[in-house]
């Protein structure tokens, strides 16, 4: 069973499976169906892929490095960088002045909104700055515009959404691409099959 991310990586992931000779027609033609037993595929939210793989409901899965960074406690093997879906985890702030620097100078701490609380907390802790992390579930760009926070940590591909909301990238945290992950038990018991898939995807 392979766990696929129903999100921005979905289309390219299906193309990848086509190249492996896996039949994705049913997945493409049925947006509401989630489990495709015949093809050995299950479609889940990108952030749920590590969950399904860790528990062995799926032997392997594909998800973004951003998800794996945020869920670093998951016991899964990261087998391969698939290269596609590239985007960058950044710190962004309103493009006038230096809101993050100002907050740190005046208050000794900065408020940061993000969908990635662990990545954000670790980034600021690693650079010796006290950050108050405000977790939001969507439209992170809105948070600094309303005065909720001084800056955000978010994923950006083109920078367009940031620009539209008068935000600019002030620090770069990590590059994220699609990754192939495996359940540790499946990786042993189905080593031949998983190695074969990994080799074909590597080439």
């Amino acid at each position: 069973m392979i766990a696929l991310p129903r999100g921005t990586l979905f289309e390219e992931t299906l193309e990848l499976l086509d190249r492996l000779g896996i039949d994705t027609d049913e997945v493409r033609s049925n947006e509401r169906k989630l489990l495709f037993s015949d093809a050995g595929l299950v479609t889940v939210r990108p952030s749920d892929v590590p969950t399904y793989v860790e528990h062995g409901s799926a032997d392997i899965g594909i998800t973004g490095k951003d998800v794996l960074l945020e869920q670093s406690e998951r016991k899964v093997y990261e087998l391969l960088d698939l290269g596609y879906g590239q985007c960058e985890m950044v710190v962004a702030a309103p493009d006038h002045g230096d809101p993050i620097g100002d907050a740190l100078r005046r208050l000794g701490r900065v408020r940061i909104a993000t969908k990635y609380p662990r990545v954000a907390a670790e980034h600021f802790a690693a650079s010796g700055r006290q950050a108050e992390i405000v977790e939001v579930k969507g439209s992170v760009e809105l948070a600094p515009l309303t005065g909720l926070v001084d800056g955000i940590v978010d994923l950006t591909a083109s920078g367009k959404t940031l620009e539209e909301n008068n935000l600019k990238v002030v620090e770069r945290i990590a590059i994220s691409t699609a990754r192939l992950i495996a359940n540790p038990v499946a990786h042993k018991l189905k080593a031949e099959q998983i190695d074969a898939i990994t080799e074909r995807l590597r080439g």
Partner: protein
Amino acid sequence: MIFDLGLVRELGYYTGAVFEVYDPAVGFALGGGGRYDQLIGRFGRDLPACGLAMDVQRVHLAQAAEGALL
């Protein structure tokens, strides 16, 4: 039986071979163990040893999946 030179166990007292037990129905190792020739010596008596521990709940899940409990 799978021979795997890449297997690592988290406990630091192993001195030789280590092993884990898997079942296709369970996503986690059912248990594991290995050789620990110096462990008992730390408590006063030199005695080479080998042992393992199994997670009873996971073994139960594996048995249930094989229909062994019916």
